[in-house]
């Protein structure tokens, strides 16, 4: 795991010398050599990486991979504060638990994230393009990454089996930021299926299905498979005292409901939903009444499910979708631990073919 290859020493980064980035002392005494050594120099990326790569580091501080703004703002919306720092408890939860998931330069280009599997990807080589299997998947394995690669749920995504990686669809700005902070990932410049499948644009499509449904259904409604949903999340102190750990009940489901995030880019009426790990008492280990606005936010979210197939059970025929009451979010799917706002996504469906 500590191996640095001889070949690496001849590269630009290798020529800099370990101490240039990691600190420490050039001595054969092990304790003295490591006393001031920083194993994760890109935690302070402005100083380490920024010396040469300031075209990236000047924007990286605004990247959602670094800020985790989607998570902090999601937590904030359950409260009645205007910012997380208004509450010591909430700030602690975010910084000591949620924020462990943020990425630095090294977490993608050199090693796997230190909070998960850790370890160098390839003998300290700097990968200009990170490895989907070793880097992206190390963090995004439970939902979109795992579904894309077929380790969660059913078949892998057809784009995966045809050799596409995350970086083939997601622009660099999704990782390096743009210099402007975004509120959630939905404010990012995200890939669209139409970037490649232009011929399926509902305004110009020649086939009936895309003409009729293209502007009211997200692509995933017809082309995604079931996704991984988490229910009744609960946080507890870890046994080793290293912070909070969470546990929840996972279920592979396929549910379609009203679009909770209608926007110019995603104007669809119906989208695939995913239940996210949340319940009103999930933070009770930290304090009382931590989520006073819980009932105002849905626990079911818009899901850009990443396990696309051309043919799915729901697009097999008209009736496979229109008469299939099992795929539409219903009152039966709302648990006692869910918020009232979740009910607002239950569609007045199934849309019968009779009308």
């Amino acid at each position, binding site marked *: 795991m500590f191996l640095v290859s001889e070949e690496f020493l001849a590269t630009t980064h290798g020529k800099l010398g370990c101490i*240039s980035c990691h600190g420490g002392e*050039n001595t054969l005494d*092990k304790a003295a*050599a490591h006393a001031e050594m920083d194993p994760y120099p890109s935690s302070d990326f402005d100083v380490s990486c920024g010396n040469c790569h300031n075209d990236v580091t000047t924007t990286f501080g605004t990247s959602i991979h670094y800020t985790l703004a989607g998570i902090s703002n999601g937590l904030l919306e359950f409260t009645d504060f205007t910012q997380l720092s208004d509450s010591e408890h909430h700030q602690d939860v975010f910084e000591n638990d949620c924020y462990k998931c943020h990425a630095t330069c090294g977490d993608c280009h050199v090693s796997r994230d230190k909070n*998960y*599997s850790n370890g160098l990807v390839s003998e300290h080589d700097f990968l200009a393009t990170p490895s989907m299997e070793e880097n992206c998947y*190390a963090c995004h*394995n439970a939902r979109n990454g795992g579904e894309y690669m077929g380790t969660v749920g059913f078949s892998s995504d057809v784009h995966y089996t045809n050799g596409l990686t995350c970086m083939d669809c997601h622009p660099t700005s999704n990782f390096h930021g743009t210099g402007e902070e975004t509120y959630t990932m939905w404010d990012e410049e995200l890939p669209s299926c139409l970037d490649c499948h232009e011929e399926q644009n509902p305004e110009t499509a020649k086939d009936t299905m895309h003409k009729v449904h293209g502007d009211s259904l997200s692509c995933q409604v017809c082309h995604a498979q079931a996704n991984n949903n988490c229910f009744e999340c609960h946080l507890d102190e870890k046994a080793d005292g290293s912070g909070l750990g969470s546990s929840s009940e996972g279920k592979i489901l396929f549910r379609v409901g009203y679009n909770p995030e209608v926007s110019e880019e995603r104007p669809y009426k119906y989208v695939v939903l995913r239940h996210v*790990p949340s319940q009103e008492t999930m933070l009770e280990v930290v304090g009382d009444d931590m989520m006073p606005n819980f009932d105002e936010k849905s626990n079911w979210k818009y899901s850009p499910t990443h396990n696309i197939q051309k043919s799915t059970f729901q697009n097999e025929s008209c009736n496979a979708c229109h008469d299939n009451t099992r795929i539409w979010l219903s009152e039966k799917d709302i648990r006692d631990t869910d918020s009232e706002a979740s009910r607002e996504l239950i569609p007045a469906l199934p849309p019968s073919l009779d009308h």
Partner: protein
Amino acid sequence: MNQPIAMRKWILGLLAVLLVGVTIVGFSQLGVNPTAGDLVPEEPFPYNTVDSSSCVACHTDETVIAASDWGKDKPVAVNTGG
């Protein structure tokens, strides 16, 4: 009769041009060309370097790596919930 003589001169001229061309290319391949290959001075390494020979002594040594058990029990990925 004049036409074959003119043709011969033209062919000889062409051969002469080819000979000069091949000679130039051959010399440049042998490194005679002063702008080619090893005679170009290397650009100095443009970044500050710090002598890290002590680090390298251990961190490139396979036996040291093999003796370490750090991370050996870690899978590529655990269920992150992400």
